[in-house]
Every structure is written in C-alpha cells, then in structure tokens.
C-alpha cells in the first residue's frame, strides 16, 4: 500500500530559500539546491519549490535553480508560484518538475486547471489554495494570503477536482506559522468532499502534529517548511516515529 508522504517546501525568493511566519518576517535559510540534497538524504518523499513572490510581483521562477536541483535529486518535484499559463507549465516541466502547482493563476483563470490537465495529465496538476476562516466560511485567499477572493474553499476544491486537478494542497492561513498543529477541522471539511489526495500545509510544529494529521485521516501528505529548515523536526526521525505508530512510511 502507498505510504503517507512527508514533503518539505522550499519557498524561494531571489534564488534563496526563505520562510515567513504568517507570510511575514521572512528569514533567509539556505541555498535551494543544497537544501534539496539535504532533504533527499533525510528521506523526504517529495519536494515543493515555491516562488513566494512570483504571483505578487509577477516574477518568473528561477528555472536554472530548478534544473540544478532536478539534476541532483531524483524524487518527485513540484513547482509553484507564478504559474499563470500553459507556457509556465511547459517551462518548469522542461526543467525537471513532475507536478505543477497553481494557485493565484487558477483563481484568475479557472480554465487553466482543465487545460493543463488535458495537456499534461491530471497527475501533473496540483491545485494549491490558501484558506482562512471568514464569517464562519472557509474562504480562498490570494497573493500569499493578502487578498480575500470571496471564493468558498469547499466549492473551489470540488471545482478543482472536477476539472482535472490531481492533488490539492490546503494551506491554512489560520494555523500557518503557529506551530500548534495542522488545521484538522479545515482539512476534514475539504477532504470529505474530494477523492484526490490532499496535502496538508500550515501549522506543523512537532512530530506529534503529523501523527495527529494522519490518524485523523484527513490528508495523504504533510507539508512543512520552517520546522524542517530550522531542524526543529528531523525528517528521518519523524518518519521512524510515524512508522512506530503504525503509519506506513518509506524509510
């Protein structure tokens, strides 16, 4: 049976890995290629490279960094940030990406999901959404959590799946950076409505948070950044811990 997955996310700006707390107060961490190698050796199941400023400032991803990472790390790579067109898909896939994550680009142009799925296959299209509670509703936010789109996150998740998204990344703005655990309530609401894999993001602070996530049965993978970057959680130890607690893990 397939394993649950542990996915470090490398937020990249100006060719460096950064991580914000609630998307602000960004601290430089290290080189993306070195980080990718480090995580690969620690047993990461997949890596996400995310250009956090791309959607805001219209910046293009640094494809040479991706190409370098993909030449030295042979596990699935997902790339996101600034993906607005099929040409953007093409550009990152040619540099070694296996999946492409769309966020703001799909909000601006929802047809992008279907068009990309048709051209590259469902497995290639990841719909990533930043979600926050507003007036008792799960609402999709845009541009790194700065703009309330007014879109209902549950409807958006269902739309994404129906139109060919192969996976969903659900990033809870409410729990992001707090290191107090994943947003199980939000994840359950969304994963109850879709059959595609859900990747949980936002809120992991310790290894128990991942166990709670998988035991709750609300996600297929757990994604985190700063706790891995700052070595608060070691991926190898995390995976051994989860396996000891009967979660299937690739060790």
């Amino acid at each position, binding site marked *: *049976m*397939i*394993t649950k*997955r542990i996915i470090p996310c490398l937020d990249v700006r100006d060719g460096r890995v950064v991580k914000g707390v609630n998307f602000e107060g960004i601290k430089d961490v290290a080189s993306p290629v070195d980080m990718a190698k480090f995580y*690969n050796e620690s047993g990461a*199941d997949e890596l996400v490279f995310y250009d956090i400023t791309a959607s805001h400032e219209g910046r293009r991803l640094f494809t040479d960094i991706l190409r370098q990472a*993909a*030449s*030295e790390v*042979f*596990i*699935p790579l997902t790339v996101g940030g600034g993906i607005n067109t099929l040409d953007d898909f093409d550009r990152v*896939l*040619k*540099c*070694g990406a*296996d999946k492409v994550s769309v966020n703001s680009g799909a909000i601006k142009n929802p047809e992008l999901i279907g068009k990309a799925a048709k051209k590259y*296959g*469902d*497995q290639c299209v990841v719909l990533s959404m930043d979600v926050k509670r507003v007036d008792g509703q799960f609402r999709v936010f845009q541009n790194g959590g700065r703009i309330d789109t007014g879109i209902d996150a549950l409807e958006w998740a269902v739309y994404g799946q129906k139109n060919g998204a*192969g*996976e969903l990344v659900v990033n809870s703005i409410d729990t992001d950076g707090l290191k107090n655990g994943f947003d199980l309530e939000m994840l359950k609401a969304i994963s109850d409505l879709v*059959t*595609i*894999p859900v990747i949980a993001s936002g809120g992991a602070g310790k290894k128990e948070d991942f166990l709670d996530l998988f035991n709750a049965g609300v996600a*297929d993978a757990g994604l985190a950044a700063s706790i891995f970057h700052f070595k608060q959680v070691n991926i190898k130890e995390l995976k051994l811990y989860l396996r000891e607690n009967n979660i299937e893990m*690739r*060790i």
Partner: protein
Amino acid sequence: MIAIIDYGCGNLFSLSRSLQFLGIESKITGDAAEISDADKIILPGVGAFGDAAEKLNSTGHADLLKKLAKEGRYILGICLGMQLLFEKSYEYGEHSGLGLLEGGVYPLDADISGLKVPHMGWNKLDIVRDDPIFANTGKDDYFYFVHSFYAKNCDSCLLATAEYGVDVPAVAGRDNVYGTQFHPEKSGEKGLALLKTFAEL
C-alpha cells in the same frame, strides 16, 4: 551507451539526468542508427497508450524495437513504456502494443474499490521471481508510482508486484526485455540503484 528513445512522449529530463548522475553514458534519440548502435535501450513514456503506440508505429520505432529485442538487445520500458511492451491495452478502446511481453493493460479503477486512481505515491515491491535486475533491490525498498492502468494476465513475465487493492505488476521481464511500472528516475537512491543494475546487465 544507453539510448533513451525520443518519440515525443514524456519528459526525459530526469531520466537522462539520473543516468548522467550515475556516470552512465546515454543519449536521448529518435535516430534509428543511433538506437541500433546502443548497448541498451530505455523506452520511456507518459500519456495515453493509444497516442504513444501510434507514434512508435509511425516513427518506425516499433518495428526497430521488435527486431532489436529479438536479437537480444536489453530494453527497459518505464511506466507507459513498460505498458507498451505488452500485447494489448484497453485504455480508452483497444490498442496493440509491441507484444514483447505476454499480457495486457487494463484500467485499474475497474478492479479496485475505495482507493484513489491514479495509484500515485511510494509503494513497496513483492518480488515474485528472483532476477538479476533485483541485484541491488530489497523487499523493503519503495518506488514511486503514477499510473491509472496496469498489466494483467502477465504471469509468464511477472517479476514483482506492488499491493494497491490488487497485486499491481511493478516489474516485468523476460530474457532481455524489462519493464517497471514505477519511475526509477524518481524513486530516490533505490531507483538509481535499479537503473544502475539494468545498465550493468
């Protein structure tokens, strides 16, 4: 030299880079002379079976592969490339494959319930028949799968399976022709070890 067949199906970047990383000489090529000169051949593939089979036929690669396989040339099909080695596929219609391995390719969702399709993620192998291709592979090694169709009726060439509601053929092989349903070029160290083993057969 290993020829990676370029017939317009799939992303060859990682495969080519993984061989380069291993220090194995390879070339992405669609040229019949270059393919014929290669020590070994890798048939990659992502996408729909029907399209891919048609492209292999129209480029002449299908006939060339059958001829080279008969002469004993080592061939490794990866993912859709593995599926193309079988006789037939029932992916949206009925299509003929290369017929280098006995068996057919069928939709996974018809045979499993309560599990997501595609079968995507890291899964473990059950080796059902020992083979030199497993020289560096153990029973607790995980490999990365992404597929919605799978091989059936392929007992004569079945080497390893992965459990996903059914026993999904994960490695098939007969004499000099091998196929992996998973992507060794995306399966970390264990995947690289298997590619290296193939290169050294």
